[in-house]
């Protein structure tokens, strides 16, 4: 298929809201424009025919103010209906002309000539052309009007984004097409998308090549948006979660590798990607959170006995991503450090309430099947206890949550004879549950999860349940362990964003517990774990670490957990 056709097909399916008006700024950035206003930034405010405001050169190179009115979806074609509608094209263009736009941040902004633009991913109907042209010549007698239709958009996207970065060679072109074709296919592991992201990142221009640098970043974000919008069209956002998580984490890894985390131009561009990722998650959680918090909302009714595995796996996955979303939301919308404590406290209150509701509604949120389920559990606990205001009720909830998890571990052990699997490979667990027989490769002889739960119980001074749990564990042969990152041999931060961490951990095994929780606190309270100074935090994206732990299923580091609990 010709690239133009692929792009055209993609563009013509975009709606106006959050789709066409979200990617058009990317094109403008790629063309070297400075975007001053976008629909995302002016959400809830009247745009007066100026969905996008940007400064940029025209074909002769002369700088102009561009006031763009974007029409997509049902309004993408120009005809008598879309033209004369209330809030239609005519109305918008007149408003754009009549209402001034002020921007103090740009010197001499007022002095720049204006170009009014109608951007729409459709055509003009031939029987309406004459009327439209008449209106334009009357309204914009100076000729300062441009109409960017589907042909124009296809051409420009091809030229500035796809052709330059996304599809510069046959390999990437093939990968891109495969992504478009397969992204919503069941069982697709997104290998093409990952490779494409890697290829794009490998060719990322240096910041000094300003336009190319910007357009490359715009392309990366566009790629994410394409996946997002494809999934939205299919009413299934799930494939985009993995793709966008990977895009974000892999990009940050590349920045860390190239030591660009302190370069302002880079973090500015990366911030756009974080925003796009966050917006996607906001859409995902907006769609799913109400259903998820229904009684057993994360339980798939028609999946039958598979839900013995499916329900807990899905619940912990949801929980982990949700906690990341909550953490990131503190930084939204600028993703710069905020001093708005009031807003943070308010947000945290809402988040805690939802987390409690979600956990209370879904028993599987406290039924760990894998040892690595310590990650979403600890992420949740860290979030609640890391809030600016932690009430007694919060601490009680966390304590009960830990007890609930331990209780489930014991129930499963007593009924099915297994502890959480220490392998990330789910097949032995699936075989175990499906056949009720322990496969030879099911491994549950050790645990990082149980010690971390016991540690939290002790720190919350839930001494009785702590002792009960140890009593119930007394006849088990399970080896309690603690994973400590090996900061001497590895750049732990880079590894955290690279893949699942395995050899990067040093293991303290055969942990033995004293008789009481008090003795345990005395023995471990003074222990100091190495505190890692994260470049990610310094760059203003500390929440990304949670996503990395959750996505790559790398256990939280004891030092970080201890810091949150204290």
């Amino acid at each position, binding site marked *: 298929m010709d690239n133009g056709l692929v792009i055209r097909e993609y563009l013509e399916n975009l709606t106006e809201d959050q789709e066409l008006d979200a990617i058009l700024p990317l094109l403008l950035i790629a063309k070297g424009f400075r975007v001053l206003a976008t629909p995302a930034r002016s959400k809830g405010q009247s745009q007066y025919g100026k969905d996008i405001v940007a400064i940029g050169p025209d074909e002769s190179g002369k700088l102009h103010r561009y006031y763009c009115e974007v029409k997509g979806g049902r309004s993408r074609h120009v005809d008598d209906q879309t033209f004369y509608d209330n809030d239609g094209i005519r109305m918008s263009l007149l408003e754009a002309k009549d209402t001034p736009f002020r921007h103090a941040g740009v010197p001499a902004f007022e002095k720049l000539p204006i170009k009014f633009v109608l951007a729409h991913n459709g055509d003009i109907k031939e029987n309406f052309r004459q009327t439209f042209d008449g209106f334009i010549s009357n309204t914009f007698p100076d000729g300062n009007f441009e109409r960017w239709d589907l042909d124009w958009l296809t051409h420009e996207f091809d030229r500035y984004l796809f052709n330059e970065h996304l599809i510069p060679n046959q390999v990437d072109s093939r990968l891109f097409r495969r992504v478009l074709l397969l992204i919503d296919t*069941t*069982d697709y592991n997104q290998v093409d998308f990952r490779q494409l992201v890697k290829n794009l990142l490998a060719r990322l221009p240096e910041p000094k090549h300003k336009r190319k640098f910007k357009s490359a970043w715009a392309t990366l974000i566009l790629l994410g948006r394409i996946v997002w919008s494809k999934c939205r069209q299919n*009413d*299934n*956002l*799930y494939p985009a979660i993995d793709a966008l998580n990977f895009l974000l984490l892999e990009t940050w890894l590349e920045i860390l590798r190239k030591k660009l985390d302190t370069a302002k131009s880079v973090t500015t561009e990366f911030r756009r990607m974080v925003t796009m990722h966050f917006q996607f998650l906001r859409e*995902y959680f907006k*769609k*799913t959170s*109400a*259903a*998820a918090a*229904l*009684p*057993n*909302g*994360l*339980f*798939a*009714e*028609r*999946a*039958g*006995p*598979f*839900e*013995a*595995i*499916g*329900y807990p*796996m*899905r619940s912990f*996955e949801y929980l982990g991503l949700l906690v990341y979303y909550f953490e990131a939301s503190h930084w939204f919308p600028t993703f710069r450090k905020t001093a708005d404590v009031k807003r943070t406290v308010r947000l945290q209150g809402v988040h805690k309430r939802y987390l409690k509701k979600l956990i209370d509604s879904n*028993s*599987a949120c406290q*039924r760990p099947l894998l040892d690595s389920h310590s990650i979403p559990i600890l992420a949740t606990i860290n979030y609640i206890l890391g809030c600016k205001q932690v009430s007694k009720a919060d601490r009680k909830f966390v304590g009960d949550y830990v007890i609930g998890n331990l209780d*489930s571990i014991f*129930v*499963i052990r*007593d*009924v*099915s004879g297994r502890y959480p699997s220490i392998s990330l490979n*789910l*097949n032995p667990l*699936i*075989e175990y*549950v*499906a*056949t*009720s027989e322990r496969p030879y490769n099911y491994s549950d002889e050790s645990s990082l999860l149980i010690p971390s739960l016991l540690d939290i119980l002790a720190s919350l001074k839930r001494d009785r349940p702590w002792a009960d749990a140890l009593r119930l564990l007394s006849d088990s042969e399970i080896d309690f362990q603690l994973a400590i990152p090996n900061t001497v041999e590895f750049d732990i931060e880079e590894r955290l964003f690279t893949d699942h961490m395995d050899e990067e951990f040093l293991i303290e095994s055969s942990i033995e517990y004293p008789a009481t929780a008090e003795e345990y606190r005395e023995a471990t309270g003074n222990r100091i774990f190495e505190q890692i100074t994260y470049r990610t935090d310094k760059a203003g994206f500390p929440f990304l670490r949670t996503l990395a732990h959750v996505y790559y299923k790398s256990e939280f580091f004891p030092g970080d957990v201890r810091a949150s609990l204290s």
Partner: protein
Amino acid sequence: MTLFLGVTIDGFQAMILIQVRDLSQVSKVNICALFDDPRRSCKLLSEQVVPCITKQPQMIFSKTENEILSDDKLNKVLKSLFSIYLEKGMILDKIADESVIDWDESRGLELISFDELTKKWVIVPNYFFAYTVLNGTIPDLRSKVPSSVEQLVELFESVTELSDEKGRTGITLLADRIMELLLALIHETSGETFSDWIPRLDSERISKINLEFLQAYCKVADTLPLCASDIANACHHFFSWNDLIIWPNVNPLIERVVGQDFKEAERLILDLPAEFRIMRTLFLSGLIKHDPERAWLLVRSEIELVDNQSYILGAIHHFEFSEQSRAFEALRLVKKCNLGIEVTRHHVPYAVTRLVARLGFEDVTFVDECFQVLKDIVPSADLPTAKQVLLSLSASVEKYPSQTIDLAGDLLKNPNITYEYLADQKSLISFDALLEEVSDLNIVFDFFQNFALCYPFKFDRDLFQETMYQIQSSTESIDGLCKKLIHLIVHDVGEVRYLGVEMLSCFKNQPFRDQFYQNLAELDPISQYKLWMSILSLEASPKTSLVWLLPLLHAKNEVVAEALLCKLEELTESYHEEVITVVERYSEENAGILMTAVVRLKTHYASFCAMLDIKNNIIEFHPSICQPQYYDRFRELHRHRMNEQINNSLNNRQGILSFAKKVVLVKGGGWKHRERDEVTKLGRFQSSYTWPRLHLLNPERFDLERKLALAANWQSDKTDFDEWITV
């Protein structure tokens, strides 16, 4: 020697069986008639005596035939039937054959009958017919008397084979008779005793006639005559063939042999080696019948030797125990036996239960002592011994059901009688056969309760099919039965409650249900509450479980009704509209008595469905979207596992499938009958089941909580029924 004679007595056709001990010396023979009416038989035995047949035995069979054929009418009928048989086999044609035979006469003589199954008239294979055939077509047996077992097989097969490849004759008696004739002829002509022939019948090639040989041998061996030692050896060998047919054939033969010569019998009892245990038992049994005093002396002296005890234990019950002293003496002898010897240990239960059963007087002490012998054995008995005890109890159950079932209860506690062993029908150990003989339901219920405690939550009504059938058809009042069941269902002990609910599921008839409803209404509120908790604690379709509880939805006590309704609301989430349908139907049948409940259930279910709709719209939560690989893998493994379990379950049940040949259809269209056009779509089958939603939500916790709820002791666990329900 046995002769058969067809005669007419008092206008009745009869078959006379003439038993001749020694033709050359005995002048008169007894007659017993094969009448259905026992009064007529008695009359004949006491009054009718016929002159003895004095002719030498070489032509006894033709002589008998002559007797038969001297009746003209009978002779004519037989000849007609015989010619049809030769021509077509056993089946008659009502039209074609009507003119050939005297239809009414044949029916009257029971020579023909109508086979309901095939809807055809068939020749009845009786003695008359067998003799006629012998008289008409059997080749001249005398001209080629077999001189080896191989020749015997060949000749037997050729003379019993029908023409036109119609197979072997279906007239069993005819074949038997031919074999008897052949054995007699062989012995007459060559003096053969068959001692060498019998072991050769073990070989696969000729073993196909061994049972015919055995039957014929047992019929004629004493009349040929063969010596008692040869007969003992032969019969001992027969037992190695391990067939059910052996006992009913050998037993009468040995009895006759003993009757002919007591001394020889006694000599054999004493002289036969230990491995001839069964033969020694049979000879001793015969001797006890014919000369009990001689036998008693022998038993008293022989039982001192450990090797003799087992064969004596097999026969000792044949003594008449009309006197207490003899019975106690016999019991004392039994108790003396060395239980350390396996074979002896296995025979003690057999002897004791039969002693008790044959007791001719009432003596509680004696009965108690007998059962005490078994009670001492049972607790530590090994599995074969325990099995022998259980099998032996069938002898005492009719006369002493209470003591017998009490002992069966002790057997349940034997560590070797595991549930798995009981459930395995191959083990051939069953309490069902014992219990079905018991008419007192209290005894049966007590045993079941015992069973429920010994094998917690494993009571399976399939293990007690016959007994359950007996209970259902019991003459005891339905009211009494209902009360007994309700008592079990609301029992404080979880294991007993489980038993009650399992038993309840067997009762499906309307009169029982009506009575159950009536008794339900009369229960106190706490028992009503307990009843629904108990019945709903087991996962079962509402169609089978809920139906028992519906009257409680309008119980006088509001707490009972409300609590049950709340439970039903929860059940709609697992069983959906089925719950509502059951309640609605009951309400309609009872003048809309539960309409409020129905509306409430419908409302609850509608809101539940609305919630499901919201969830189902989120396709991101469906495993085929978010966990496709794991979902597919799990389903594949789970389906395979389920199929395996169903197959195992069917195989272990040894039900109808075990009798059917296993055939795998290569293609899936169905099974077509070769000769008819019937097609059975058995090539594929599908089964479905309702899985409680609560189990799917949290399987391990559901199982654990269910187990705890089932096992809860409502007395000791301090359940708060009193607090919940204000009476």
